[in-house]
């Protein structure tokens, strides 16, 4: 069964550094999402992406964040100049055209020290 995969599973970084979180969506899916979950809080929507463009983003997704689909398979979330409060689990999800169900990856745990 096809799955969404994410790498790395755990990333530790120093405050102020840049990180790139990687996702490989399910191959025939066209809609991609990033969510995050700060420890003890809700899963929160960050951004959705379709046709090589951001289609919707939340208030959290400010200039510090960017997304990219650098090739036909990867979908990345870049966080510039990380802050302590960026520590969270980041989930990638993808969805097929015409279907409402999103399939989630296992998440990347980001720890900013």
């Amino acid at each position, binding site marked *: 069964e096809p799955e969404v995969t994410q790498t790395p599973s755990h990333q530790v970084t120093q405050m102020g550094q840049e990180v790139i979180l990687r996702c490989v969506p399910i191959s025939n899916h066209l*809609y991609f*999402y990033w969510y995050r979950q700060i420890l003890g809080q*809700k*899963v*929160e929507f960050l951004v959705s992406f379709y046709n090589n463009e951001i289609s919707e983003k939340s208030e959290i997704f400010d200039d510090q964040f960017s997304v990219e689909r650098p090739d036909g398979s990867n979908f990345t979330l870049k966080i510039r100049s990380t802050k302590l409060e960026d520590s969270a689990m980041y989930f990638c999800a993808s969805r097929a055209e015409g279907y*409402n169900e999103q*399939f989630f990856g296992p*998440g990347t745990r980001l720890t900013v020290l």
Partner: protein
Amino acid sequence: AQSVSQHNHHVILSEAASLELGCNYSYGGTVNLFWYVQYPGQHLQLLLKYFSGDPLVKGIKGFEAEFIKSKFSFNLRKPSVQWSDTAEYFCAVNFPFSNDYKLSFGAGTTVTVRA
């Protein structure tokens, strides 16, 4: 503002007990409703979903949920839990103002089933 709330933060049960997890949303119009489960160390998996039709929906692993429009609720149930149902359960909603079917999640309920 539209929101999703789950009533229980942590539920502890014995095997064979019945489970009911509450979920409410704040919006008067049509929504799409989901329950996701996250087993320890694994990714979020869809348990069941409701878009329209029969308000009692059946999902995987013996779970079901009932949509009650008048109560803005979508409660998850399982008549007899197993140790393997230990997991975190998330209610999620698509509100119609989202063009991209983004999900709004509840805070999650941790379910611990004791053998």
